């Protein structure tokens, strides 16, 4: 069962930027790329907890602002020589509004 929640218009996020959603399990970062693709991932770098939402977005990747690990936003996998993965969350855009599936957050809570 999915439960989509409206989190706002896509224009609330700068192109090649991110905004944060607070959840009880920690922050989720929502990214917008040059091509207006939207991705939702954990806002915590697996390296030393850097806030990924503050990183530089390029292509469909983000570079952590603390020590420059780069993550693929679609898969959550670290790129290059680094190893690690961040959680990714289902998100869709409808009529310019972003919808997040919060059942995933609940699952994460249960896990």
């Amino acid at each position, binding site marked *: 069962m999915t439960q989509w929640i409206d*989190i706002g218009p896509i224009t609330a996020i700068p192109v090649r930027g991110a905004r944060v959603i607070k959840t009880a399990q920690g922050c989720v970062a929502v990214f917008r790329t040059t091509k207006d693709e939207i991705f939702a991932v954990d806002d915590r770098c697996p390296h030393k907890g850097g806030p990924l939402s503050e990183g530089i977005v390029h292509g469909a990747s983000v570079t952590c602002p603390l020590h420059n690990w780069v993550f693929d936003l679609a898969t959550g996998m670290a790129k290059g020589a680094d190893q690690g993965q961040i959680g990714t969350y289902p998100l869709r855009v409808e009529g310019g509004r972003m919808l997040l599936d919060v059942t995933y957050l609940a699952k994460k809570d249960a896990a």
Partner: protein
Amino acid sequence: MKKLIVIGAGMATGRALEHLFEADPDAYEVTLFNAEPRGNYNRIMLTPVLSGEKTYEEIVTHDAAWYESHGVTCRFGEKIAAVDRDRKVVVTEGGEELAYDKLLFGTGSNPFIIPMPGHDLDGVIAYRDLDDTNRMIDAGGAPGSKAVVIGGGLLGLEAAAGLRMRGMDVTVVHIMGHLMDRQLDEAAGYLLRKALVDRGINICCSANSKQILGEDGHVRALELADGTELPCSLLVMAVGIRPSVALGQASGLAVGKGIHVDDQMVTSDPDVLAVGECVEHNGAIFGLVAPLYDQAKVVAATLLDQEAVFTPKEVSTKLKVTGCDLFSAGDFAEGEGREDIVFRDPARGVYKRLVLENDRVIGAVMYGDTADGGWFHGLIKDGSDVSDMRDTLIFGPSFQGGAQMDPLQAVAALPPEAEICGCNGVCKGQIVTAIAGGAQDLGAVRAQTKASGSCGTCTGLVEQVLAVTLGDDFVIPAAQPICGCTDFTHEDVRLLIKTKELKSQPAVWQELGWKSPDGCHVCRPALNFYLLADWPLEYKDDLQSRFINERKHANIQKDGTFSVMPRMWGGITNPQELRAIADAADKYNVPTVKVTGGQRIDLLGVKSEDLPAIWADLNKAGMVSGHAYSKGLRTVKTCVGTDHCRFGTQDSTGLGIKLEKALWGSWTPHKVKLGVSGCPRNCAEATCKDVGVICVDSGYEVSVGGAAGMDLKETQPLAKAVTEQEAIDMTIAFVQLYRENAKYLDRPYKWIAKVGLDWVRDRVVADLEGRQGLIDRFAISQSVYQKDPWAEHIAERAEVYHPLANLTLEAAE
């Protein structure tokens, strides 16, 4: 298995063992002794280790795994004290005896120490091995420390340049009239001297050292014959080497200048061989690796009873000092029947000289542009008749045959036996064979043939051979591209932005063929800076291409919180401002309030979402952002000057405030810090800032290029200003010149080291019209960029500092 004992784990024996194991891994059981407590490393690369460009680990040529896989018994840190050839045993220092079937001497050289008074003081060292290098590195650690290098040859200059890069104040003392007199003629020596002086190295030629002066057993100064004293805490002697023959002599081998060897590298005892700098062959001794590597091949063959003959070749020299392009080969002394062809281009600092005898090139010296060095070296070695191309000879291979050839064609035209890598004696044919055998890139060619694996100066040539052999499959990588998104260097991109009038990032990506759709975290901040510096009125600053600190106008801390610092002009504040800061600290629960090194107050530990509110409060009290996070003007540190101090000669605080008000808000390639002191007591520590002003009775001494971060640098004097306005003008012009020319993330001192202080001075001091142009362009940029980012963000962007949504309730279901 037969027993081979090797004395010395140097560059020559290392190579000999490689050839031996390659040809027959099971012929010998090898025991390797080395007086140094380590195995084989690339001695040539000690200079990059000294300058900090490489680490020791990167120059090790044979590691423990290599020795183990080849069954070598390593006895590092153990010296051989004696050899008993009758019983065929070696004796270690500890008195242990080991028997051999074959013995190989590779004891190298000993640096020559002039036995002048004081040579045994602490702090007097030679430049030969890793321990010497480490001693020099340690000596460079003390700020402002001084070094003297005796000897203006290859080694001395490399030591001097390395020490200089470590921040030491270095003087080279050379007995001859010009530097590198054995390799260069006077004109090239002059150009070299100029380049080194630009780098901040002092040079004394025609200077004879008399004695070394000490204090408490440690070196204090060098005294020259004319009575001059050069103070120093480190004295490096690089005046020559002598083959290390003592052990050979004591063992009863035939020894002249070096241990005598025949064409098979066998000494006067048929079971004892010798290789490297310790040998003498037909009256010649050797001091560069190229011939030693040839010898190493012969040694391996002889040990396996194969035929091989060592024939010495002409060697060429290059200086491994970054940015000094220098090449010399052959003989260029004046002499009967010898003719010179000389080419000079003073504006570019290029000088080339060929020495001809009987229509053959016998010597070549080049400075500034050494691209054709390899070709001339080939002509010398082959003894080619050059009468047909005499007219255009000096212009190099591309001019032979009329039309200008591109460098690739020139390489394509080289015969297979043309030598590409001088250090390792690798010719073009071997490289082509390796490529045909599957080596498709530089790394693979290097691994298989060793070409470009030693000093690395032929890397470009090897790449060109790859390019002509592989055709379109191989793209020559340009020197240090900005990042993986492009092949262009920072310098190329800056140039192209100007010449092609590229005024937006997409224009750059498109026109310069970026390989990624929208750059990456490395190139985008650089491009953003270049574009706004060159086109302040047309380009729109891109916050998303800025590192978080600049995007959010606050410094990110390790826990993801931020620090906030209001400007305090020239370090001056008042009770009202202090109260506002204290109130803000209370209101936003600031855990740490810190006074910074730049005389400002830093509020550490502010949450991202509180930033707009704390800024608004500080703005209300009249304070603006201190840009403590920016690649831009940070702080202007001042002392109290004439207002209060009894020594002050000028109003240093006032000048500091004026400078900060003129420069704040400007973006620069890296951070910029200023200091103004009211007298030479220098309480504001102005001489370790990017620009430092020292007020004196007669005016203002402006100096530039200091730093007190990872590297410690003292500023270098730019000029003296008579009036305060002149000091301000020079400072602004300097900052603008830096903005227009430096590579992103190069602090001013790094940039100055590349372009030379003279070049800067010419533009900022001497050329008044040019100075005004710089000031005008700076003013145009400031008309756009000098604004308080805090106020701007509160008005326009406050919402992005807050979460997009708060789902803490939903998620809790």
